[in-house]
């Protein structure tokens, strides 16, 4: 491992510079509880990558006297613990950013505090991180703070977690201790939606498994920490999502030029593209993509440009330009997860300023549905949200705003709440979904309604939402139930992958975003069918709790039964009716649920069918009785 390699001669400089600019960037944060050694770890990463400069090293050695030092006689935490107050107290009280690069990658590190009252800073660091390093003291194992931080990481959509089991030297490099912590964390975080979890035993003070694999942990077969960070693939998700362009500033140098300056939040925009204004739904075409370096043919996600449109449309700061057909929600009510960051608690009924992208509007906290205990993930009723608490809330803005769910678009779904008097940032929220009743579209009120249509059919519309692994038996059970209902003269319909993936949703792939959109559309179709009076059986893997929650929400007041076909992975894999598991194991199918993509088992299914022990007929019978009894 060497640090940045200097070019050998001036003739190489062009190529060398190109390599520098073409490097990818990884942003990671370190979190964990006090004294787990976060700052020491970062200092160690910098030191071992030979990135500490001579004058820094000299000042470090002089500062390290009278402190706990490693074999090199250096207290590495001094490199990152910047503020004088912190150095005196020996704790980190704010987010510090560090920059380093190796010959493979550039890194921005956010060092975030573990002290309980500073959890808000961790959320800050997490909001811009691709990966989180979660430190655990090997002697102490998983603590309350570890759980809280894991939950906040999950809330802010951090997909990759490295469990850094630090101070492994102090437990004599014990393999069992490491394994127990690893397993405990995986069990705890199963529902948190992390795409990857990797555990590494390290001693930040002594340098074990930081840059090179340590001989003192011969039982550890994974990559050392730096190697992992250098090679981790993080997706370019924003690029593949629908086009969003929040207008930041209207550019009018003279009467002949009117451009809209902003940064492409997601997707791409090309010359001649049709766009819609999210608020007015007025269409326009992109005439020019202006930059000081000349006009562009296209702009990518993350690029700051100025768009000129082909016609006069009323657009100002806060407006969002979007791709026709895939426009964001435009509404004044939504449900969100809220992290409270202020001493003064949040109360339902209070009014705040809400900032989302370049939109700034007054907003009222209309309902606090529940508080989530960040240590146990249990939900409970609450009258307010105090500092560092997390809750599920609904908010109503004074005028409609354009937004997407945070899971689909972080820029369009992440917001802050600001105090209207002292202007402090009070909390940060992630939008879960818009509330239907608020949508500024006028739904036609028909005299012929669901009740009338259902009565005509002599049945109560229902949506049965199956969830379970591929091969668990969902479709088999759904077929049996449909046959029975049809035999009884009732009108049922099965929505499954075969009739939806090949038609309505054939434009969708299997990324997480596409899966969520897939489920959203299916849920909408199911609702329409139920509205038409049908009994709808939806048979999709639907692995994510979130999407099932969305489906239930979309169903609104329609009877909704979540049926979990609980067939263990090994049984499904042994059946493998379509040969998918074999191909997924071979790496031919990516993002395959259970193999390379998580399945989040329901916590509150309305009915659980034991696919390993019961026959399809028996399961169909149980489900049928449940449907009738409702």
């Amino acid at each position, binding site marked *: 491992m060497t640090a940045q390699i*200097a*070019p050998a001669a*001036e003739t190489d*400089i062009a190529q060398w*510079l190109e390599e*520098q*600019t*073409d*490097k990818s*960037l990884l942003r990671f944060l370190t979190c964990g509880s006090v004294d787990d050694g976060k700052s020491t770890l970062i200092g160690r990463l910098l030191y071992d990558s030979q990135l500490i*400069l*001579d004058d820094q090293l000299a000042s470090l050695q002089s500062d390290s006297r009278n402190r706990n030092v490693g074999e090199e006689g250096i207290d590495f935490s001094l490199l*990152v*613990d*910047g*503020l*004088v107050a912190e150095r005196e107290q020996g704790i980190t*009280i*704010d987010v*510090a*950013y560090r*920059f380093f690069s190796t010959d493979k990658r550039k890194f921005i590190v956010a060092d975030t505090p573990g002290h309980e009252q500073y959890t808000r*800073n961790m*959320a*800050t660091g997490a*909001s*811009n991180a691709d990966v989180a390093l979660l430190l655990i003291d090997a002697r102490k194992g998983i603590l309350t703070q570890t759980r809280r931080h894991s939950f906040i990481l999950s809330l802010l959509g951090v997909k990759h977690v490295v469990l850094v089991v630090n101070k492994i030297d102090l437990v004599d490099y014990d393999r069992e201790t490491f394994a127990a912590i690893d397993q405990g964390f995986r069990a705890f975080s199963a529902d948190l939606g992390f795409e990857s979890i990797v555990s590494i035993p390290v001693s930040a003070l002594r340098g074990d498994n930081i840059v090179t694999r340590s001989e003192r942990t011969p039982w550890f077969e994974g990559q050392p920490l730096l190697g992992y960070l250098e090679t981790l693939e993080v997706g370019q998700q924003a*690029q593949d999502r629908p086009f969003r362009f929040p207008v*930041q*500033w209207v*550019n009018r*140098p003279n009467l002949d030029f009117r451009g809209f300056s*902003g*940064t492409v939040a997601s997707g791409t925009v090309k010359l001649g593209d049709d766009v819609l204004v999210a608020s007015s739904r007025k269409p326009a075409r992109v005439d020019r993509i*202006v*930059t*000081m*370096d000349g006009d562009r*043919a*296209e702009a*990518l996600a*993350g*690029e*700051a440009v100025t768009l000129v449109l082909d016609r006069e449309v009323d657009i100002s*700061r806060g407006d969002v330009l979007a791709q026709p057909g895939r426009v964001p929600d435009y509404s004044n009510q939504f449900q969100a997860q809220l992290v409270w*960051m202020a001493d003064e608690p949040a109360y339902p009924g209070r009014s705040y300023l809400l*900032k*989302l992208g*370049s939109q700034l509007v007054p907003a009222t906290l209309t309902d606090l549905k529940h508080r989530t205990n960040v240590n146990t993930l249990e939900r409970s009723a609450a009258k307010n949200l105090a500092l560092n608490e997390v809750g599920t809330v609904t908010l109503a803005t004074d005028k409609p705003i354009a937004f997407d769910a945070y899971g689909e678009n*972080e*820029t369009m779904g*992440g*917001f*802050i709440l*600001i105090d209207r008097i*002292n*202007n*402090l*940032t009070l909390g*940060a929220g992630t939008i879960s979904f818009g509330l239907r009743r608020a949508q500024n579209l006028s739904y036609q009120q028909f005299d012929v309604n669901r009740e009338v249509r259902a009565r005509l059919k002599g049945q109560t519309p229902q949506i049965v939402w199956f969830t379970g692994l591929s091969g668990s038996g969902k479709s088999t059970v759904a077929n049996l139930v449909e046959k029975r209902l049809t035999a009884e003269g009732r009108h049922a319909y099965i929505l499954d992958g075969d009739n939806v993936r090949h038609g309505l949703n054939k434009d969708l792939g299997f990324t997480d975003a596409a899966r969520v959109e897939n489920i959203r559309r299916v849920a909408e179709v199911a609702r329409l069918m139920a509205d038409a009076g049908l009994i709808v059986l939806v048979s999709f893997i639907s692995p994510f709790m979130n999407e099932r929650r969305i489906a239930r929400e979309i169903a609104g007041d329609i009877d909704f039964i979540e049926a979990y076909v609980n067939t263990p992975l090994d049984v499904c894999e042994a059946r493998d009716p379509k040969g998918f598991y074999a191909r997924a194991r071979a790496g031919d199918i990516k993002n395959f649920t259970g193999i390379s993509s998580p399945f989040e088992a329901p916590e509150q299914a309305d009915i659980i069918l034991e696919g390993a022990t019961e026959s399809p007929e028996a399961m169909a019978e149980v489900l049928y009785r449940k449907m009738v009894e409702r």
Partner: protein
Amino acid sequence: MTSKRQALTHLERLESQSIEIFREVAASFERPVMMYSIGKDSSVLLHLARKAFFPSKIPFPLLHIDTTWKFREMIAFRDRMAEEYGFELRVHTNQEGVANNINPFDHGSSRYTDIMKTAALRQALSAGQYDAAIGGARRDEEKSRAKERIFSHRNAAHAWDPKNQRPELWRVFNTRINPGESMRVFPLSNWTELDIWTYIHAEQIPIVPLYFAAKRPVVERSGTLIMIDDDRYRLEDGERPREEMVRFRTLGCYPLTGAIRSNAASLAEIIMEMQASTTSEREGRLIDSDQAGSMEKKKQEGYF
């Protein structure tokens, strides 16, 4: 630009994020100002500001705090840039300091800096009633800067309270302030020194010639090479300036700015030299090493 690009490069990303910050300032504040220190970071800042608002001109003035001890080449460069790019340049000097003949020799670097830079800055910001001041500080420069927000709140006395910073999530910036308060804004927060140089190289941004090695008259004071820019410098007995090939990694007041011996006369050579070097950038500035935590103290008092 070709249409084959799949993702932005590191520098394109940094550039876009900085531009976004500039636009946020222009859209959210009544009376913004951009600090212009004439150094290489200021050159990058100026370039980004021009890009952010193109084809409009930069919609706010640039402010230079002139201590009267800047290198002469810096002042010439400043005036040339203002003329070439047509931005509004405002220059402020602490006249009280001038009247009292405050200088780095009689008053020490700490007191001199306090009066001619920090106090001068406070005067200028108050007089201009600026509600946002854009600066070129980077988080990689110094430990206390590593914790600064991109939008960093200042109370009515221009002071920074590091324990009461607003959380800054995603790229959603809380730009709200009350009357009398102000915001310091740092569009280069996430740039490193290497990023600055590679960007200057890639975009061919003009910088003060002092960054390039040339024969210059210097004296050596306790290991630091000082360029004798005019006859106000007080030489000690027997001390005589000698011509050496030197350049500067950072620019400020000439009696307080150390040069390095170097033959790097082009950007490529500077970058090569920098990659081989093992000392960090601010070492050439004498003011930081006066006392431990000195930068943080200055910042709390209003220094950039």
